[in-house]
């Protein structure tokens, strides 16, 4: 059984109400479009339920709609035995075009009528019996948000499964007729059929009044005030993903590096393996890797919860209207603003937030741009370097990095669009504004939980494996010495860094100390400073504000590698740090949202941009400085 229907009619809500805790969400092969799968008990048997992406019709205009079409019209037996078309009573006419098309085939169809309360508020009543007669298939009214009426739907589905194929409605076109003129006539015929059904079933019970939704929209989408309100909402989202999540992250981090690590050490010691490589593997590899993953959990949970609330309330559609003009300049719809803003806090939830975008191309482009937004982890490194090398102008230098970040997003966006997606026209703004509604707690929490599970399932492996791999490289001696007991500069890790270092000579920081910090920064930007501390065998500075001895060492290193242009080399290093791969967790999130190939492509683009910019900054800078 498949759930289909126009976007925003309550398909997924119905899906959740029907399948309860048994649902799972999987990525459909080949695309990032999500298809929900679950099961529901229909009479004595268990029926598999597929929740399809929203589509107004079977004429594919986006990958989502193509997927819906392929699944519904499959002829190889994988097609659903019964299609439940979810139709909104408030927007009946446009919900029924899909029914018109499906009724041209013999596929059994059941219509689930939702949002009667919204229609009623607007003075409309839909007569389900009259609609059943007009459509020639059963119509069941229900309210999935309050989980009422689902039993009646199940009964209707059971009945439809027993009865088998329907007689197609008259006026269906012969298969294979692709004449565009006929297309137009056919669409007109379908609209006519739908209109008859609507006229027969809808009773106007009162005058149409301005709803409170309209009153909110007078503010939320208005010129000047609308964008200001949007900025306020963005600010709130940014605050939550940074200031609220940060203490939770720190607490989890402290818990893992403190009690959990010592507990693990003790356990390893208790089984007689203390002070062996096993202890290093467990404590510095496994526990550190899982710990890093854990610190992302509160952040991602908050982000997903906010997204769910913004989507469920109906505000997201308004945000798209307000930001449309601005984002259109780089070929993205207004909604792409949200992931990019969130990226300045942390790239990982920002990449996950790209799923609010309607098409795969827009999701891919935005997810590729997110890493160029300068996240807060990079800020700590900027501050340390700026305080050390530009004590007089530290604030200005850090601010300049943020400006550079915004410019990079715009320029890379334009570059990608004019090369890869030249055909991606800026689609004109046509957006349905659903009535505002109060987000339900259960719905928001369940959406959050679902997405968090997905993140953990796909991201956990890559994060833990990478942390363990870096630990392994640092423990392997390059020459003599035994495993786990080598100083960092004699490890395989340092020798790899030395091999790579010459590639960064033109940028003025081709030295293994700097390069190895960048390699560690690939895992997490937070680790760049502690990596330096480890390399120079110094205590990590208690705060980035007082670089102390580490600052002296850094000055010496950068001065040596750049032939006396240390300050310029540092600027080049900071630009490189801004533009290259943010962290392994971002890659994991990207892989989940846009697939492995696009993720690898993104890494290459970032490395090329980072290297080119760093070289340009150093080569131009040293002429003047």
């Amino acid at each position, binding site marked *: 059984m498949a759930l289909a229907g*126009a976007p925003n009619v309550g398909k997924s809500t119905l899906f959740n109400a029907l399948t309860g805790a048994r649902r799972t969400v999987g990525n459909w092969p080949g695309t990032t479009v999500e298809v929900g799968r679950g099961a529901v008990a229909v009479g004595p048997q268990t029926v598999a339920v597929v929740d399809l992406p929203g589509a*107004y*019709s079977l*004429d594919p*205009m986006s990958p989502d709609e193509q997927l819906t079409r392929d699944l519904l019209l499959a002829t190889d037996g994988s097609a659903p035995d019964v299609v439940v078309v979810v139709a909104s009573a*408030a*927007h009946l*006419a*446009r919900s029924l*075009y899909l029914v018109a098309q499906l009724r041209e085939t013999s596929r059994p169809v059941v219509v689930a009528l939702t949002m009667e309360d919204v*229609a009623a508020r*607007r003075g*409309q009543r839909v007569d389900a019996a009259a609609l059943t007669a007009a459509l020639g298939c059963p119509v069941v009214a229900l309210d999935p948000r309050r989980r009422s009426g689902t039993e009646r739907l199940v009964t209707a589905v059971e009945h439809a499964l027993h009865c088998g194929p329907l007689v197609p409605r008259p006026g269906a076109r012969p298969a294979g007729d692709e004449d*565009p003129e006929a*297309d*137009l006539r056919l*669409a007109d015929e379908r*609209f006519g059929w739908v209109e008859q059904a609507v006229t027969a079933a809808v009773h106007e019970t009162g005058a*149409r009044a301005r709803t409170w*939704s*309209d009153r909110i*929209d*007078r503010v939320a*989408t*208005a*010129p*000047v005030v*609308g*964008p200001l309100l949007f900025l306020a909402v963005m600010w709130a989202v940014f605050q939550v993903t940074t200031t609220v999540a940060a203490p939770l992250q720190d607490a989890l981090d402290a818990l893992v590096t403190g009690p959990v690590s010592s507990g693990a050490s003790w356990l390893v010691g208790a089984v007689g393996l203390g002070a062996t490589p096993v202890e290093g593997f467990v404590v510095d590899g496994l526990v550190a890797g899982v710990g890093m993953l854990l610190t992302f959990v509160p952040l991602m949970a908050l982000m997903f919860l906010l997204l769910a609330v913004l989507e469920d309330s109906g505000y997201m*559609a308004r945000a798209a*209207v*307000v930001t*449309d*003009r*601005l984002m259109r300049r780089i070929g993205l719809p207004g909604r792409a603003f949200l992931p990019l803003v969130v990226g300045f806090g942390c790239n990982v939830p920002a990449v996950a937030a790209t799923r609010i975008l309607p098409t795969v191309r827009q999701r891919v482009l935005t997810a590729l741009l997110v890493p160029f937004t300068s996240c807060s982890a990079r800020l700590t490194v900027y501050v340390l370097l700026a305080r050390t090398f530009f004590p007089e102008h530290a604030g200005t230098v850090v601010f300049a990095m943020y400006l550079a970040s915004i410019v990079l997003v715009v320029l890379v966006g334009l570059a990608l669009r004019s090369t890869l997606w030249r055909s991606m026209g800026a689609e*004109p*703004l*046509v*957006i*349905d*504004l659903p*009535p505002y509604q109060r987000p339900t707690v259960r719905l928001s929490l369940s959406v959050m939980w679902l997405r968090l599970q997905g993140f953990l399932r796909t991201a956990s492996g890559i994060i833990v494996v990478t942390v363990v791999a870096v630990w392994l490289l640092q423990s392997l001696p390059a020459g003599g010495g035994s495993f786990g007991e080598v100083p960092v500069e004699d490890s395989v890790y340092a020798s790899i860094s030395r091999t790579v270092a010459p590639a960064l000579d033109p940028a003025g920081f081709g030295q293994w100390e700097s390069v190895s910090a960048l390699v560690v920064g690939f895992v997490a930007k937070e680790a760049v400073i502690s990596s330096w501390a480890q390399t120079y065998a110094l205590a990590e500075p208690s705060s980035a504000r007082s670089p102390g001895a580490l600052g002296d060492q850094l000055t010496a290193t950068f001065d040596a590698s750049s032939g006396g242009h240390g300050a310029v080399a540092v600027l080049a290093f900071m630009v490189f740090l801004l533009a290259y791969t943010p962290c392994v967790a971002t890659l994991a999130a990207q892989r989940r949202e846009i697939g492995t190939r696009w993720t690898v492509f993104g890494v290459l683009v970032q490395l090329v941009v980072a290297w080119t910019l760093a070289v340009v900054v150093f080569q131009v800078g040293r002429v003047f400085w």
Partner: protein
Amino acid sequence: MTTLDRAPFGVTVRIAPADRSDALERRLAELGLRGGVEVRCLQRTAGGGRVVDVAGARIALGREVLQRVRTEPTGP
């Protein structure tokens, strides 16, 4: 004959039949904006678009779209 971007606010106007069928036309038709349907412009939006009342639904349209939708006077 005028276009939707010049229709007065709060006044019901009728959409003229479309003379071509492209993706945008079809998308608008799916949302209920097609020939013979009566609609009402409700308000201006940031960015030069408008919110339009189409059979009770609220649709936000960009300026380019409004300029393409032709309207005809209502009445017998």
